C-alpha cells in the first residue's frame, strides 16, 4: 500500500513537472496569444490591454501557479478567446477518449489472439505471415495507414465514410464512422503488441514450471492459460499500458485526417494561438488518463507477481 502511494506521488510529480514544461515551452515560442487573437490590425495599446487581461504581463511562475491552483480544483480557466476551457474539454475530450478506448480494446483483442496463435504455431503459415506484416505495420506511421484506409475503403470500394460527421450530441453520427479511425490507430499498435505477446509467451513457456506441467501431461490449453499466460502477463500489461500514450498521440494525427471531432485539432490550433491554458489542460487530461492506465498496469503486475517474492 505504501509502495502504491509512493508510486502515485511520483507519477503526480511527473505530471506537474510536465505541465510546468508546457508553460515554459509555449512561452518560448515566438509571438503571443494577445496578438494571435486580436489579429494584425490591433495597435500596441490594444495588445497591451489584452495581454493584461490574459495575465501575460505577469511572470511565468505566477501564471503557472494561477493556472495550476485553478486546475487542481477542476477549473482550467478560459482560452485566449474567452471560451471556457472546461466546456471545450467537455465537448471534445469524451470523443477522443471514445476513439482511443475502442482502438485500445481492438489492440488488446487482436494482439492477444495473434500473439497466442503465433507463439502456439511458431512455424505455421500464420507465423510466416505475421513476421513480416507485423514489422511492416509497426514501421508505417498512423497517418499513412489512415490515408491508405481512406483510399481503399472509402474512395475505391465505397464501403465506409471517409470523414466523421457529428450529430447534435457532438458524437459521430453513425458507428461505422468509427471503423476507419479505430483501424488506423489499432493496426500499428496491434503489430507491435502481437510481437510483445508472442515474445512474452515464448519466454514464459521456457520457464521450468511450464516444462514440468507439460511433462505432467496437462492439456495444451490448460498449460497455456494457467501456467504460461499469468507468467507473461506483467510484460504484456506494461506493453499495453505504454500503447495508451502512443494511441493518444496517434489519435491527434488520425483525428485531423478523418475530421474526427476530438481534441487533436484543438491542440494544434491552441499551440499556434499560444493558448497556454488550453494546451496545458489537454496535457493534464491526457496525462492523467495515461497515468491511471500505468497505475492499472502496475496493479496487474503486482497481482501477477503476488507471492512470487
Amino acid at each position: 500500500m505504501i509502495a502504491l502511494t509512493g508510486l502515485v506521488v511520483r507519477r503526480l510529480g511527473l505530471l506537474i513537472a510536465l505541465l510546468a514544461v508546457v508553460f515554459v515551452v509555449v512561452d518560448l515560442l515566438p509571438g503571443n496569444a494577445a496578438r494571435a487573437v486580436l489579429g494584425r490590425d490591433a495597435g500596441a495599446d490594444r495588445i497591451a490591454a489584452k495581454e493584461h487581461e490574459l495575465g501575460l504581463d505577469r511572470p511565468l511562475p505566477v501564471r503557472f501557479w494561477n493556472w495550476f491552483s485553478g486546475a487542481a480544483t477542476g477549473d482550467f480557466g478560459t482560452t485566449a478567446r474567452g471560451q471556457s476551457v472546461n466546456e471545450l474539454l467537455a465537448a471534445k475530450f469524451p470523443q477522443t477518449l471514445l476513439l482511443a478506448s475502442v482502438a485500445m480494446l481492438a489492440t488488446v483483442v487482436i494482439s492477444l489472439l495473434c500473439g497466442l496463435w503465433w507463439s502456439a504455431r511458431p512455424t505455421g503459415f500464420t507465423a510466416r505471415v505475421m513476421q513480416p506484416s507485423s514489422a511492416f505495420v509497426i514501421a508505417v506511421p498512423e497517418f499513412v495507414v489512415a490515408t491508405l484506409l481512406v483510399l481503399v475503403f472509402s474512395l475505391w470500394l465505397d464501403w465506409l465514410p471517409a470523414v466523421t460527421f457529428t450529430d447534435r450530441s457532438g458524437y459521430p453520427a453513425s458507428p461505422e464512422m468509427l471503423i476507419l479511425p479505430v483501424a488506423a490507430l489499432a493496426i500499428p499498435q496491434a503489430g507491435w503488441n502481437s510481437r510483445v505477446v508472442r515474445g512474452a509467451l515464448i519466454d514464459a513457456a521456457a520457464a521450468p514450471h511450464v516444462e514440468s506441467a507439460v511433462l505432467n501431461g496437462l492439456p495444451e490449453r490448460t498449460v497455456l492459460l494457467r501456467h504460461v499466460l499469468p507468467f507473461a502477463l506483467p510484460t504484456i500489461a506494461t506493453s499495453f499500458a505504454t500503447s495508451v500514450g502512443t494511441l493518444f498521440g496517434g489519435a491527434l494525427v488520425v483525428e485531423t485526417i478523418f475530421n474526427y471531432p476530438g481534441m487533436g485539432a484543438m491542440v494544434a490550433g491552441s499551440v499556434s494561438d499560444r493558448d497556454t491554458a488550453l494546451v496545458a489542460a489537454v496535457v493534464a487530461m491526457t496525462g492523467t488518463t495515461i497515468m491511471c492506465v500505468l497505475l492499472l498496469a502496475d496493479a496487474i503486475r503486482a497481482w501477477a507477481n503476488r507471492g512470487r517474492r
Partner: protein
Amino acid sequence: MDLNRRQLFKAGLGLSAILAIAACGDGSSSDGSGGSPQRGGTLRIGAIGKSSKTERDPHATMSNESDFLIMSLIYDPLTVPGTDPNVAPRLASKWESDAEQRNWTFTIAEGATFHDGRPVTADDVVWSLRRLREVAGETKVPVSSVDDIKPVGANAVVLTCAGPNSQLPLLLRLMTFAAPKGTTDFTKGIGSGPFRLESYNNGNARLVRNDNWHGGAPLLDAVEVTLFESPESMANAIMAGQIDVASSVGAVAGRTAEARSDLQVIRRPNDVAIVIAMRTSDGPFADPRVREALRLAVDRPAMVAQVLSGYGSVANDILGTADPTFDSSIAQRKRNVDRAKQLLADAKFDTGRTYPLVTKQEAAGEVESAKVFASQAKDIGLNIEVVVQEANAFYDDTWLKAPFYTVNWGTNDSVMFFASKVMSSRTKWNETGFKDAEFDKAYADALAAPAGAKFTEASKAIQQIQYDRGGYIVWGMADGIDVASRSVQGLPKLGGYGRVQLERVWLSS
C-alpha cells in the same frame, strides 16, 4: 493569427450571385448547365476552420472560413462584392455621398426584417456598425469614432469619414453584419440574411431558408456547413460524396476532381495574390533599377505552372488585378535576363552577396513561390537564400521590417484597396517602405473623385507608378478552387470571400 489577417482582407472581396446576375448578367456564377433553377434540397458544404477558434459574434475578428460562411448566410452586410462595379447592394439598397466624398448615406433595403420578425431599422444598423467599430477598429469601419455613425430617419444611416473617401462602400463589403440593437446573446443567430440558423454544434451549423428574405427567398431548403480542420480531409469528404461542395479546397483536390465525371471544379480567378515585397526606402533594393531587374528575372508562366499547378494567371506587378479600372494597356512584363543583368550592373548591385528571402507556410504555394523565384533569379546572377519562418515569428520579426519577403493578399478586385493598405505613405502596413509623392497625389485624387472618368484616370496613375517603380513582384494570381458535385448549380465565381454568397445556389436532380 495568419488566418485572422488573411480573412480580414479577403473579406473585402466576393460577390452576391443574385445581384451580379440580376444587374449585369455577367456570368459571375457557375453556369446553369443543369437547366432551369429548381427549388428544394439541402446543400452540404465544407469549409476550413479550427474547432479551437470558433466564433459566434458576427463583429469579432473571425479566423475560421467556416464561421465566416455561417455568418454570411445568417446576417446581411451593408454591401457585398460584385464584378463591375465591384460593390453591390445588400442590406443597403443604395448609397450616395456629398460632393466631397466624405458623408455617405446608406438606405436600408425595403422589406428587410430580422428572423424574429422585427423590421431592420436605422437604429439596429447604427448600433451594429458602432459595435463593429469598437470591437474591430477602423479597419472594418473607416471612420474616426463611433459618433461618426448616425441614423437618418427610420431607414438610413450616415457615415462621416475623416477626409474624402470614395472607397467607403467598398470598404464596408461583407463583415458589416447587422444584428438587432442591443443583442447580447449571439448564439441564437438572429440576423436578416437569406438563411436562418436551425442548429449549431462546435463550428458545424444547419441553416434553413428564410422565406421572408428581402432579396427574395433562396431556392435551397437548407444549408449544412461542416467545419474541416484540413483541406485534405475536406477533399476526402467531397471525393467520397459526403458533402456537395468543398469550399476553397485547393489545387491538389482540383487536379484529382478534374478526372471525375461526377464532380465539377470551380475556378475563381484573382483569389489570392502571392507576391514578393522588396523594400524601396533603403537596403539593397532601394534602387528602382534593381527592382526592375528582379521583376525581369521572373519567369511568370513558369511560376504559375509550378507554384500554382496552373491554377492561376500571370500578373504584371500591379496589385488589384480584378479591378474594373485595371489598366490592361500597360505592356505585360516578360522575362529578360540580359536586360536584368545590365540593370544590376548599371546599379552596381553586389552580386557577390547572398540575399535572404523570408517566407512562411501561409497561403498555399507561398514557400514554393520563394524557392522557384530563387532558382530563376540565379540566371541574372542574384543569389537568394530562402528562409522559411513560422508565421507568428514572421509577423513579429520580418513583416514591415525586412528588405525582402513574401506576402499574400486577398481583395484583388480593388486597386484602391492596396493603395490604401500597403502603398500610401501614411499607411501603417507599408510593406515595401514605399514613399512616393506622385503616388500619394494620385491616391488622394482617387479618394476625392466620384466613380467615373476622373476616378479611372487616378486609378490608372496609381497602377502606372506601381508598374514603373513599385516594390512588389506581382508574378501571378492564384485561382480559388472549389470542388462541387455536378448537381450543384449557381455557385459564386468571384475570388476571395465571394464564395460565401450561396443565396442563389440550387440543386439539379
